[in-house]
């Protein structure tokens, strides 16, 4: 048992689950608390991951500083995008962020000199070198970051700023008539939370150790969305449960527990994504409030 818990496999599973929980919690803050429909999560996550790795590998900056720089870069890129998009309606924001993410993916692919393009970018070492236990130690560090994020989200929803965000989501014009500069708040909050997505992108870099443009695919975005929709849009617990229900059940149980022949195993990822799509349709159709219930986001 101990050897399983300290194994690279367990550590990697734990870390990735934690990262997806983080992305889903941030998505919950953006989409359900602030009412910004972000379909470009993969883009911000990718910027954070690549920027961190570039600072680390090309400029020899310490990993932890690189992560912070990566998050700042992500936030700074999100800021003008938010300025342009966030006073448009929900559909436009959705389409705009989706387009942004696809352009990020494309740029990572094209700018070979900086990102390595399709040859990849590596190798990113485990930042905490404690011998054989380095994977699990890093995994626990990632979990600690995620716990901090959850605490922040939980506290924020009860703080005056959370109340303000809810008011903007519910009725922006009414909130403005109470003197709230809603547009500015939305922009700043979007940039900050995108910076956080970038931070978790940076934390993902050592887990992948070798970065490829295809990692920054929209699948990341949809995984978070599906987890949030399935778990329950209006609750932080929904985000956590949702990730466990999708990622854990599909990826780990399906791969580890079910003994599949090699040929069928190749099909597993495709099956999973198709099942994600199906789940998204079914959840929105039959139980839009998700597993954890609660309120549904307004129109």
């Amino acid at each position, binding site marked *: 048992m101990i050897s399983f818990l300290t194994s690279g496999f367990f550590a990697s599973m734990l870390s990735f689950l934690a990262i997806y929980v983080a992305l889903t919690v941030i998505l919950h803050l953006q989409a359900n608390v602030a009412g910004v429909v972000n379909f470009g999560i993969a883009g911000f996550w990718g910027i954070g991951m690549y920027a961190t790795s570039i600072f680390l590998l090309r400029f020899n900056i310490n990993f932890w500083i690189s992560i912070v720089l990566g998050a700042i870069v992500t936030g700074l890129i999100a800021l003008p995008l938010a300025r342009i998009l966030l006073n448009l309606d929900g559909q436009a924001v959705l389409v705009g962020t989706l387009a942004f993410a696809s352009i990020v993916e494309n740029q990572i692919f094209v700018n070979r000199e900086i990102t390595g393009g399709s040859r990849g970018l590596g190798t990113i070492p485990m930042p905490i070198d404690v011998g054989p236990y380095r994977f699990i130690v890093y995994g626990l560090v990632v979990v600690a970051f995620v716990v901090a994020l959850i605490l922040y989200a939980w506290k924020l929803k009860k*703080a005056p700023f959370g109340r303000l965000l809810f*008011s903007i989501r519910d009725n922006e014009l009414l*909130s403005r*008539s109470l003197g*709230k500069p809603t547009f500015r708040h939305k922009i700043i909050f979007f940039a900050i939370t995108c910076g956080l997505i970038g931070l978790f992108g940076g934390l993902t870099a050592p887990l992948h150790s070798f970065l490829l443009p295809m990692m920054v695919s929209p699948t990341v975005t949809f995984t978070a969305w599906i987890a949030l929709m399935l778990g329950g849009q209006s609750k932080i617990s929904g985000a956590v449960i949702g990730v466990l229900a999708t990622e854990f059940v599909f990826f780990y149980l399906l791969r580890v527990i079910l003994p599949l022949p090699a040929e069928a195993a190749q099909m597993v990822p495709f099956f999973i994504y198709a099942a994600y799509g199906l789940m998204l349709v079914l959840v929105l159709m039959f139980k839009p409030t998700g597993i954890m219930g609660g309120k549904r986001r307004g129109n």
Partner: protein
Amino acid sequence: MSACNTCKDTEKTGVLHIKKAVKRFGGKTVVNVEDIRIGTHCIEGLIGPNGAGKSTLINLMTQKLSLTEGEIIYYRGDEAINVSSKNLNTLAKLNLVRSNQIIQDFASLTIVDSMILANTDLRHEKFYKLFNDKEVREAAQEKIDFYLDYFHFDFPEGHALSAGEKKLLDIIRCLILNPKFLLLDEPTAGLPQDQSDKVIDLLQKKTAEEDMCVLIVEHNLDLIWRVCDYIHFMADGQILIQGTPDEIKGNETVNKKYIGEESNA
């Protein structure tokens, strides 16, 4: 500035000076107001038949809509503010506040939360301030207690349920902002009589005691005659006649313009 018979000091309340304000939608002129001052009395009324442009004028004053031509100056004490240089939320912070004709509410906020939101200063609303909710609640407590005591809500700890409660909450939120100039768009529509009387009593008390003046847009003329010190009559986008309730009541033009409307009612 002309003297006000009931207000203590117009220098301290807000006054709106509308100069040649024009609003067109497409080619249609909806509002065309020459030169008037609003807010020189405690409670003023804005009346006129449907489609006269009353709500549009209010929207122009608070920058929910922008002017096609002309300007509206908001005198706040000795400050002169061109409303076109501001927007809805900055004007609210300058104590030029409006209520809504159509029922508006925050679906996820309780009555108390809604009041706290209105009362909270911008400096408390920062993404990094996580531990100041107690402080913000305490700051609003006195007002919350007052309004929950003064008005009746079925579930004071929960959400505003009926249309009337939402309307009432809308007015309360406006009052919490300490307006110097308060625009009320059909404040008593949908309110039960006792609550509506309480709103009016409170407005009269506040305008008499505090630095606040009110402009009421209403179809309920009995209410207008009863509470307004001064009335602006609007038709076809223009302010046609101004005067005291008695002057307006007896005016032929007013009666003529209202005939169609009265027979409908």
